[in-house]
Protein backbone atom coordinates (compact mmCIF):
# COMPACT_ATOMS: atom_id res chain seq x y z
CA UNK A 1 0.00 0.00 0.00
CA UNK A 2 2.29 2.75 -1.16
CA UNK A 3 -0.64 5.15 -1.26
CA UNK A 4 -2.72 4.60 1.86
CA UNK A 5 -6.46 4.88 1.29
CA UNK A 6 -9.11 5.35 3.95
CA UNK A 7 -12.85 4.68 4.08
CA UNK A 8 -13.46 8.33 4.97
CA UNK A 9 -11.40 11.26 6.20
CA UNK A 10 -8.71 9.05 7.76
CA UNK A 11 -6.37 10.89 10.12
CA UNK A 12 -6.26 14.45 8.75
CA UNK A 13 -3.72 15.57 11.37
CA UNK A 14 -1.19 12.95 10.33
CA UNK A 15 1.12 12.89 7.35
CA UNK A 16 1.64 9.55 5.71
CA UNK A 17 4.64 9.08 3.53
CA UNK A 18 4.26 5.62 2.16
CA UNK A 19 3.37 2.49 3.91
CA UNK A 20 5.66 -0.14 2.42
CA UNK A 21 3.96 -2.98 4.35
CA UNK A 22 0.80 -4.88 3.49
CA UNK A 23 -2.36 -5.14 5.53
CA UNK A 24 -4.08 -8.51 5.29
CA UNK A 25 -7.28 -9.04 7.24
CA UNK A 26 -8.84 -12.35 8.26
CA UNK A 27 -12.51 -12.02 8.99
CA UNK A 28 -15.19 -14.51 9.98
CA UNK A 29 -17.32 -15.72 12.88
CA UNK A 30 -16.18 -17.16 16.16
CA UNK A 31 -15.02 -20.74 15.82
CA UNK A 32 -14.35 -20.51 12.11
CA UNK A 33 -10.63 -21.16 12.54
CA UNK A 34 -9.24 -17.65 12.14
CA UNK A 35 -6.59 -17.90 14.82
CA UNK A 36 -5.34 -21.29 13.60
CA UNK A 37 -5.01 -19.94 10.08
CA UNK A 38 -3.36 -16.74 11.30
CA UNK A 39 -0.70 -18.81 13.07
CA UNK A 40 -0.09 -20.97 10.01
CA UNK A 41 0.13 -17.96 7.75
CA UNK A 42 2.53 -16.23 10.04
CA UNK A 43 4.90 -19.19 10.11
CA UNK A 44 4.72 -19.55 6.33
CA UNK A 45 5.33 -15.86 5.64
CA UNK A 46 8.25 -15.72 8.05
CA UNK A 47 9.72 -18.75 6.27
CA UNK A 48 9.43 -16.74 3.08
CA UNK A 49 11.44 -13.97 4.71
CA UNK A 50 8.70 -11.49 5.48
CA UNK A 51 8.46 -9.63 8.75
CA UNK A 52 5.00 -10.36 10.15
CA UNK A 53 2.98 -8.65 12.82
CA UNK A 54 -0.28 -10.12 14.04
CA UNK A 55 -2.94 -8.30 15.93
CA UNK A 56 -6.39 -9.23 17.15
CA UNK A 57 -9.51 -7.57 18.42
CA UNK A 58 -9.48 -6.18 21.94
CA UNK A 59 -5.76 -6.17 22.37
CA UNK A 60 -5.29 -2.44 22.68
CA UNK A 61 -3.40 -1.49 25.80
CA UNK A 62 -5.55 1.61 26.02
CA UNK A 63 -9.00 0.11 26.48
CA UNK A 64 -8.55 -3.54 27.36
CA UNK A 65 -9.00 -3.14 31.09
CA UNK A 66 -11.98 -0.81 30.73
CA UNK A 67 -13.67 -3.10 28.23
CA UNK A 68 -13.16 -6.17 30.39
CA UNK A 69 -14.56 -4.39 33.42
CA UNK A 70 -17.53 -3.19 31.43
CA UNK A 71 -18.21 -6.62 29.97
CA UNK A 72 -18.10 -8.25 33.38
CA UNK A 73 -20.73 -5.87 34.63
CA UNK A 74 -22.72 -6.11 31.35
CA UNK A 75 -23.41 -2.39 31.64
CA UNK A 76 -22.74 -1.29 28.08
CA UNK A 77 -25.60 0.16 26.06
CA UNK A 78 -25.40 -0.23 22.33
CA UNK A 79 -24.03 3.12 21.16
CA UNK A 80 -21.67 3.24 24.13
CA UNK A 81 -20.40 -0.24 23.36
CA UNK A 82 -20.03 0.59 19.70
CA UNK A 83 -17.94 3.69 20.44
CA UNK A 84 -15.83 1.96 23.06
CA UNK A 85 -14.88 -0.72 20.56
CA UNK A 86 -14.23 1.93 17.93
CA UNK A 87 -11.84 3.64 20.36
CA UNK A 88 -10.02 0.39 20.87
CA UNK A 89 -9.82 -0.25 17.15
CA UNK A 90 -8.52 3.26 16.45
CA UNK A 91 -5.85 2.83 19.10
CA UNK A 92 -4.66 -0.43 17.57
CA UNK A 93 -4.74 1.02 14.09
CA UNK A 94 -2.77 4.15 14.93
CA UNK A 95 -0.39 2.75 17.52
CA UNK A 96 0.24 -0.78 16.23
CA UNK A 97 -0.92 -1.47 12.69
CA UNK A 98 0.17 1.75 10.97
CA UNK A 99 3.65 1.84 12.58
CA UNK A 100 4.14 -1.80 11.53
CA UNK A 101 3.11 -0.96 7.96
CA UNK A 102 5.47 2.02 8.00
CA UNK A 103 8.25 -0.36 9.00
CA UNK A 104 7.44 -2.63 6.06
CA UNK A 105 5.77 -5.45 7.98
CA UNK A 106 3.04 -7.66 6.70
CA UNK A 107 0.27 -7.15 9.18
CA UNK A 108 -2.05 -10.10 9.66
CA UNK A 109 -5.06 -8.69 11.39
CA UNK A 110 -7.21 -11.30 13.13
CA UNK A 111 -10.47 -9.41 12.38
CA UNK A 112 -10.89 -5.75 11.55
CA UNK A 113 -13.66 -3.25 12.15
CA UNK A 114 -16.15 -5.24 10.03
CA UNK A 115 -16.67 -7.68 12.90
CA UNK A 116 -17.32 -4.89 15.35
CA UNK A 117 -19.71 -3.25 12.95
CA UNK A 118 -21.61 -6.48 12.30
CA UNK A 119 -22.03 -6.96 16.03
CA UNK A 120 -23.21 -3.36 16.45
CA UNK A 121 -25.73 -3.52 13.60
CA UNK A 122 -27.21 -6.78 14.87
CA UNK A 123 -27.74 -4.94 18.17
CA UNK A 124 -29.68 -2.19 16.43
CA UNK A 125 -27.07 0.45 15.71
CA UNK A 126 -27.74 2.49 12.56
CA UNK A 127 -25.54 1.01 9.77
CA UNK A 128 -24.96 4.37 8.08
CA UNK A 129 -23.82 5.92 11.33
CA UNK A 130 -21.49 3.02 12.09
CA UNK A 131 -20.04 3.11 8.60
CA UNK A 132 -19.15 6.79 9.00
CA UNK A 133 -17.66 6.26 12.46
CA UNK A 134 -15.04 4.04 10.80
CA UNK A 135 -14.18 6.73 8.26
CA UNK A 136 -10.73 6.85 9.88
CA UNK A 137 -10.04 3.21 8.99
CA UNK A 138 -7.33 2.25 6.55
CA UNK A 139 -8.43 0.13 3.57
CA UNK A 140 -6.69 -3.25 3.78
CA UNK A 141 -4.78 -4.68 0.83
CA UNK A 142 -6.65 -7.94 1.15
CA UNK A 143 -9.68 -9.06 3.17
CA UNK A 144 -10.07 -12.81 3.49
CA UNK A 145 -13.46 -13.81 4.77
CA UNK A 146 -13.65 -17.29 6.26
CA UNK A 147 -17.20 -18.42 5.82
CA UNK A 148 -18.79 -21.46 7.44
CA UNK A 149 -22.33 -22.65 8.15
CA UNK A 150 -23.63 -21.84 11.58
CA UNK A 151 -24.24 -25.54 12.31
CA UNK A 152 -20.60 -26.15 11.45
CA UNK A 153 -19.52 -23.47 13.92
CA UNK A 154 -21.63 -24.99 16.68
CA UNK A 155 -20.05 -28.38 16.24
CA UNK A 156 -16.54 -26.89 16.31
CA UNK A 157 -17.24 -24.81 19.39
CA UNK A 158 -19.01 -27.52 21.37
CA UNK A 159 -16.14 -29.90 20.72
CA UNK A 160 -13.67 -27.13 21.42
CA UNK A 161 -13.86 -24.37 23.97
CA UNK A 162 -17.63 -24.30 24.36
CA UNK A 163 -20.24 -21.63 23.66
CA UNK A 164 -19.89 -18.33 25.44
CA UNK A 165 -22.33 -15.66 26.54
CA UNK A 166 -21.16 -12.90 24.19
CA UNK A 167 -20.58 -15.06 21.13
CA UNK A 168 -24.12 -16.30 21.54
CA UNK A 169 -25.43 -12.72 21.78
CA UNK A 170 -27.16 -13.58 25.07
CA UNK A 171 -27.14 -9.88 25.99
CA UNK A 172 -29.80 -9.16 23.36
CA UNK A 173 -32.17 -11.89 24.53
CA UNK A 174 -32.80 -13.70 21.26
CA UNK A 175 -33.60 -16.93 23.08
CA UNK A 176 -33.77 -18.35 26.58
CA UNK A 177 -30.79 -20.67 26.18
CA UNK A 178 -27.25 -20.50 24.90
CA UNK A 179 -27.73 -22.88 21.98
CA UNK A 180 -30.75 -21.26 20.34
CA UNK A 181 -29.36 -17.84 21.01
CA UNK A 182 -26.06 -18.78 19.38
CA UNK A 183 -27.74 -20.10 16.22
CA UNK A 184 -29.99 -17.09 15.97
CA UNK A 185 -27.27 -14.56 16.67
CA UNK A 186 -24.59 -16.07 14.44
CA UNK A 187 -27.07 -16.33 11.56
CA UNK A 188 -27.71 -12.61 11.86
CA UNK A 189 -23.98 -11.88 11.98
CA UNK A 190 -23.44 -14.10 8.97
CA UNK A 191 -26.07 -12.17 7.00
CA UNK A 192 -24.28 -8.94 7.84
CA UNK A 193 -21.00 -10.38 6.64
CA UNK A 194 -22.53 -11.44 3.34
CA UNK A 195 -23.58 -7.85 2.80
CA UNK A 196 -20.18 -6.49 3.79
CA UNK A 197 -18.55 -8.99 1.43
CA UNK A 198 -20.02 -7.02 -1.46
CA UNK A 199 -19.62 -3.55 0.04
CA UNK A 200 -16.00 -3.98 1.09
CA UNK A 201 -14.66 -6.42 -1.48
CA UNK A 202 -14.10 -9.43 0.71
CA UNK A 203 -12.54 -12.54 -0.78
CA UNK A 204 -14.87 -15.25 0.48
CA UNK A 205 -13.19 -18.51 1.47
CA UNK A 206 -15.17 -21.65 2.20
CA UNK A 207 -14.05 -22.50 5.73
CA UNK A 208 -16.14 -25.67 5.96
CA UNK A 209 -13.22 -27.68 4.58
CA UNK A 210 -10.15 -29.23 6.23
CA UNK A 211 -7.61 -26.81 7.67
CA UNK A 212 -4.97 -27.60 5.04
CA UNK A 213 -7.31 -26.89 2.14
CA UNK A 214 -8.42 -23.58 3.61
CA UNK A 215 -4.79 -22.73 4.26
CA UNK A 216 -3.66 -23.37 0.71
CA UNK A 217 -6.53 -21.21 -0.56
CA UNK A 218 -5.43 -18.36 1.70
CA UNK A 219 -1.84 -18.85 0.58
CA UNK A 220 -2.67 -18.51 -3.07
CA UNK A 221 -4.51 -15.21 -2.52
CA UNK A 222 -1.65 -13.85 -0.45
CA UNK A 223 0.96 -15.04 -2.93
CA UNK A 224 -0.88 -13.15 -5.62
CA UNK A 225 -0.87 -9.98 -3.50
CA UNK A 226 2.84 -10.28 -2.75
CA UNK A 227 3.89 -11.03 -6.33
CA UNK A 228 5.84 -7.83 -6.72
CA UNK A 229 7.68 -8.19 -3.41
CA UNK A 230 11.04 -9.92 -3.25
CA UNK A 231 11.61 -11.97 -0.14
CA UNK A 232 14.68 -14.11 0.37
CA UNK A 233 13.33 -17.55 -0.35
CA UNK A 234 15.97 -19.52 -2.19
CA UNK A 235 18.74 -19.78 0.36
CA UNK A 236 19.27 -23.10 2.12
CA UNK A 237 21.86 -24.09 4.69
Amino acid sequence: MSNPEFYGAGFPYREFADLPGKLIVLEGSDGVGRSTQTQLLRRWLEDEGFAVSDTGLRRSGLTQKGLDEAKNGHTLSRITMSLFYATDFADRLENQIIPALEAGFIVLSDRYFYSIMARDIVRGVDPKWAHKVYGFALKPDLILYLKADVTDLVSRLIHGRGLNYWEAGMDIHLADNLFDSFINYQSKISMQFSQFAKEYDFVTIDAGRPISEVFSDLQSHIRHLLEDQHPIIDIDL
Partner: protein
Amino acid sequence: MLRKNTTPGKLIIVEGIDGSGKSTQIDLLYKWLQAQGRSVYFSEWNSSQLVKSTTKRAKKNKTFTPTTFSLLQATDFADRWENRILPLLKAGVIVLADRYTFTAFGRDVARGVDRVWVRNLYSFAMQPDIALFFRVPLDVAVKRITSARASLKYYEAGMDLKLSESRIESFHLFQERILNEYDQMVDEFGLTVIDGTLTVQAQQRLMREIVRKELEGWEGLPIPDAPPKTLLKYGIYDEKGGANV
Protein backbone atom coordinates in the same frame (compact mmCIF):
# COMPACT_ATOMS: atom_id res chain seq x y z
CA MET B 1 -27.69 19.56 12.61
CA LEU B 2 -28.81 17.52 15.58
CA ARG B 3 -32.25 15.95 15.66
CA LYS B 4 -35.04 17.71 17.50
CA ASN B 5 -35.83 16.96 21.13
CA THR B 6 -39.03 14.95 20.87
CA THR B 7 -39.14 13.96 24.54
CA PRO B 8 -41.34 15.58 27.19
CA GLY B 9 -38.18 16.70 29.02
CA LYS B 10 -36.13 19.87 28.61
CA LEU B 11 -32.46 19.91 27.77
CA ILE B 12 -30.42 22.94 28.77
CA ILE B 13 -26.70 23.06 28.12
CA VAL B 14 -23.82 25.49 28.55
CA GLU B 15 -20.72 25.78 26.43
CA GLY B 16 -17.61 27.91 26.30
CA ILE B 17 -13.84 27.68 26.53
CA ASP B 18 -12.14 26.97 29.86
CA GLY B 19 -12.46 29.99 32.11
CA SER B 20 -15.60 31.33 30.45
CA GLY B 21 -17.57 31.03 33.69
CA LYS B 22 -20.16 28.58 32.35
CA SER B 23 -19.83 26.07 35.20
CA THR B 24 -20.53 28.73 37.82
CA GLN B 25 -23.61 29.77 35.89
CA ILE B 26 -25.08 26.29 35.36
CA ASP B 27 -24.50 25.48 39.01
CA LEU B 28 -26.48 28.54 40.06
CA LEU B 29 -29.22 27.62 37.60
CA TYR B 30 -29.31 24.07 38.96
CA LYS B 31 -29.85 25.29 42.53
CA TRP B 32 -32.47 27.79 41.42
CA LEU B 33 -34.47 25.17 39.51
CA GLN B 34 -34.33 22.82 42.50
CA ALA B 35 -35.54 25.60 44.75
CA GLN B 36 -38.39 26.18 42.31
CA GLY B 37 -39.50 22.60 42.90
CA ARG B 38 -38.54 21.25 39.49
CA SER B 39 -37.27 17.76 38.69
CA VAL B 40 -33.80 18.53 37.50
CA TYR B 41 -30.70 16.46 36.75
CA PHE B 42 -27.15 17.67 36.19
CA SER B 43 -24.64 15.95 33.91
CA GLU B 44 -21.01 16.91 33.56
CA TRP B 45 -18.70 16.40 30.58
CA ASN B 46 -16.37 13.42 30.86
CA SER B 47 -17.90 12.05 34.04
CA SER B 48 -18.92 8.50 33.12
CA GLN B 49 -17.51 5.84 35.44
CA LEU B 50 -17.32 3.43 32.55
CA VAL B 51 -14.39 4.99 30.72
CA LYS B 52 -12.72 6.60 33.71
CA SER B 53 -9.92 4.05 34.10
CA THR B 54 -9.18 4.15 30.38
CA THR B 55 -9.02 7.94 30.27
CA LYS B 56 -6.79 8.02 33.29
CA ARG B 57 -4.35 5.52 31.84
CA ALA B 58 -4.20 7.21 28.45
CA LYS B 59 -3.61 10.61 30.01
CA LYS B 60 -0.89 9.28 32.25
CA ASN B 61 0.91 7.43 29.46
CA LYS B 62 0.17 10.17 26.90
CA THR B 63 -1.05 7.58 24.40
CA PHE B 64 -4.07 9.52 23.18
CA THR B 65 -4.20 10.49 19.55
CA PRO B 66 -6.77 13.06 18.39
CA THR B 67 -8.94 10.21 17.07
CA THR B 68 -8.83 8.02 20.18
CA PHE B 69 -9.34 11.08 22.40
CA SER B 70 -12.39 11.99 20.38
CA LEU B 71 -13.81 8.46 20.35
CA LEU B 72 -13.29 7.92 24.06
CA GLN B 73 -15.03 11.16 24.97
CA ALA B 74 -17.86 10.20 22.64
CA THR B 75 -18.05 6.86 24.49
CA ASP B 76 -18.28 8.76 27.76
CA PHE B 77 -21.03 10.95 26.36
CA ALA B 78 -22.90 7.97 24.89
CA ASP B 79 -22.87 6.22 28.25
CA ARG B 80 -24.34 9.27 29.96
CA TRP B 81 -26.77 9.77 27.07
CA GLU B 82 -28.12 6.21 26.94
CA ASN B 83 -28.21 5.57 30.67
CA ARG B 84 -29.01 8.96 32.19
CA ILE B 85 -29.81 11.91 29.94
CA LEU B 86 -32.21 10.28 27.47
CA PRO B 87 -34.20 8.21 30.00
CA LEU B 88 -34.62 11.26 32.23
CA LEU B 89 -35.68 13.46 29.33
CA LYS B 90 -38.24 10.81 28.45
CA ALA B 91 -39.52 10.96 32.01
CA GLY B 92 -39.99 14.73 31.70
CA VAL B 93 -37.01 15.90 33.70
CA ILE B 94 -35.02 19.08 33.07
CA VAL B 95 -31.52 17.92 32.21
CA LEU B 96 -28.70 20.41 32.61
CA ALA B 97 -25.37 19.67 30.97
CA ASP B 98 -22.08 21.38 31.64
CA ARG B 99 -20.62 20.98 28.12
CA TYR B 100 -22.34 19.04 25.38
CA THR B 101 -21.54 17.78 21.88
CA PHE B 102 -20.28 21.25 20.91
CA THR B 103 -17.30 20.80 23.20
CA ALA B 104 -16.26 17.83 21.09
CA PHE B 105 -16.95 19.72 17.87
CA GLY B 106 -14.66 22.48 19.12
CA ARG B 107 -11.85 20.63 20.84
CA ASP B 108 -11.57 17.62 18.57
CA VAL B 109 -11.52 19.75 15.44
CA ALA B 110 -8.93 22.00 17.13
CA ARG B 111 -6.90 18.80 17.56
CA GLY B 112 -7.23 18.08 13.87
CA VAL B 113 -10.02 15.54 13.40
CA ASP B 114 -12.46 15.95 10.55
CA ARG B 115 -15.40 18.29 11.21
CA VAL B 116 -17.99 16.13 9.46
CA TRP B 117 -16.70 12.94 11.06
CA VAL B 118 -17.01 14.20 14.64
CA ARG B 119 -20.50 15.59 13.96
CA ASN B 120 -21.58 12.14 12.82
CA LEU B 121 -20.20 10.54 16.00
CA TYR B 122 -22.66 12.54 18.08
CA SER B 123 -25.60 12.43 15.68
CA PHE B 124 -27.56 10.23 18.10
CA ALA B 125 -27.85 13.21 20.49
CA MET B 126 -30.63 15.80 20.39
CA GLN B 127 -30.52 19.53 19.85
CA PRO B 128 -30.89 21.19 23.27
CA ASP B 129 -33.94 23.35 24.00
CA ILE B 130 -31.52 25.97 25.28
CA ALA B 131 -27.85 26.06 24.27
CA LEU B 132 -25.91 28.90 25.86
CA PHE B 133 -22.45 29.84 24.68
CA PHE B 134 -20.54 31.88 27.26
CA ARG B 135 -18.28 34.02 25.20
CA VAL B 136 -15.27 35.76 26.71
CA PRO B 137 -12.21 37.24 25.01
CA LEU B 138 -9.35 34.77 24.95
CA ASP B 139 -7.10 36.81 27.25
CA VAL B 140 -9.75 37.03 29.94
CA ALA B 141 -10.34 33.27 29.94
CA VAL B 142 -6.65 32.41 29.91
CA LYS B 143 -5.98 34.80 32.76
CA ARG B 144 -8.83 33.33 34.82
CA ILE B 145 -7.49 29.80 34.34
CA THR B 146 -3.81 30.46 34.82
CA SER B 147 -4.31 32.56 37.93
CA ALA B 148 -6.72 30.06 39.46
CA ARG B 149 -4.48 27.02 39.36
CA ALA B 150 -0.85 26.17 39.93
CA SER B 151 -0.23 24.45 36.63
CA LEU B 152 -2.00 23.38 33.48
CA LYS B 153 -2.28 19.68 32.70
CA TYR B 154 -0.76 18.22 29.54
CA TYR B 155 -3.94 17.60 27.52
CA GLU B 156 -5.75 20.56 29.02
CA ALA B 157 -3.00 22.80 27.66
CA GLY B 158 -3.17 21.01 24.29
CA MET B 159 0.48 19.99 24.61
CA ASP B 160 -0.23 16.97 22.40
CA LEU B 161 -0.63 19.37 19.48
CA LYS B 162 2.99 20.48 19.79
CA LEU B 163 2.05 24.09 19.22
CA SER B 164 4.55 25.41 21.74
CA GLU B 165 7.00 24.22 24.36
CA SER B 166 5.43 26.50 26.93
CA ARG B 167 2.22 25.23 28.53
CA ILE B 168 0.72 28.69 28.85
CA GLU B 169 1.54 29.59 25.27
CA SER B 170 0.20 26.22 24.07
CA PHE B 171 -2.98 26.63 26.12
CA HIS B 172 -3.50 30.05 24.59
CA LEU B 173 -3.11 28.79 21.01
CA PHE B 174 -5.28 25.73 21.67
CA GLN B 175 -8.10 27.78 23.22
CA GLU B 176 -7.90 30.22 20.32
CA ARG B 177 -8.60 27.42 17.87
CA ILE B 178 -11.51 26.19 19.98
CA LEU B 179 -12.95 29.68 20.23
CA ASN B 180 -12.89 29.95 16.43
CA GLU B 181 -14.82 26.70 16.17
CA TYR B 182 -17.40 27.91 18.72
CA ASP B 183 -17.89 31.13 16.78
CA GLN B 184 -18.69 29.12 13.67
CA MET B 185 -21.14 26.94 15.61
CA VAL B 186 -23.25 29.89 16.77
CA ASP B 187 -25.14 29.95 13.47
CA GLU B 188 -24.74 26.28 12.63
CA PHE B 189 -26.47 25.12 15.83
CA GLY B 190 -28.29 28.26 16.92
CA LEU B 191 -26.29 28.79 20.10
CA THR B 192 -27.38 31.72 22.27
CA VAL B 193 -24.39 33.91 23.08
CA ILE B 194 -24.03 35.20 26.63
CA ASP B 195 -21.44 37.88 27.31
CA GLY B 196 -19.17 36.17 29.83
CA THR B 197 -17.56 39.45 30.89
CA LEU B 198 -20.77 40.63 32.59
CA THR B 199 -21.03 40.19 36.36
CA VAL B 200 -21.98 36.73 37.59
CA GLN B 201 -25.34 38.09 38.73
CA ALA B 202 -26.11 39.85 35.47
CA GLN B 203 -25.36 36.67 33.52
CA GLN B 204 -27.51 34.62 35.87
CA ARG B 205 -30.40 37.03 35.43
CA LEU B 206 -30.19 36.68 31.65
CA MET B 207 -30.00 32.93 31.97
CA ARG B 208 -33.03 32.62 34.27
CA GLU B 209 -35.03 34.88 31.98
CA ILE B 210 -34.31 32.61 29.01
CA VAL B 211 -35.14 29.50 31.03
CA ARG B 212 -38.33 31.02 32.44
CA LYS B 213 -39.56 31.73 28.90
CA GLU B 214 -38.76 28.20 27.77
CA LEU B 215 -40.59 26.63 30.71
CA GLU B 216 -43.70 28.81 30.42
CA GLY B 217 -46.78 26.59 30.40
CA TRP B 218 -44.67 23.45 30.71
CA GLU B 219 -45.19 21.02 33.57
CA GLY B 220 -42.54 18.33 33.46
CA LEU B 221 -42.16 15.46 35.88
CA PRO B 222 -43.71 16.31 39.26
CA ILE B 223 -41.75 15.72 42.46
CA PRO B 224 -43.77 13.41 44.73
CA ASP B 225 -43.32 15.53 47.89
CA ALA B 226 -44.23 18.77 46.20
CA PRO B 227 -47.79 18.75 44.91
CA PRO B 228 -48.15 20.32 41.46
CA LYS B 229 -49.68 23.79 41.56
CA THR B 230 -52.70 22.81 39.47
CA LEU B 231 -53.67 20.08 41.91
CA LEU B 232 -53.32 22.51 44.81
CA LYS B 233 -55.60 24.91 43.01
CA TYR B 234 -58.35 22.31 42.66
CA GLY B 235 -58.04 21.35 46.28
CA ILE B 236 -56.94 17.80 45.57
CA TYR B 237 -53.91 18.38 47.75
CA ASP B 238 -53.81 20.34 50.96
CA GLU B 239 -51.03 22.87 51.63
CA LYS B 240 -48.90 20.34 53.50
CA GLY B 241 -48.67 18.13 50.45
CA GLY B 242 -51.04 15.37 51.53
CA ALA B 243 -53.82 14.22 49.26
CA ASN B 244 -57.38 15.27 50.25
CA VAL B 245 -59.09 11.96 49.77
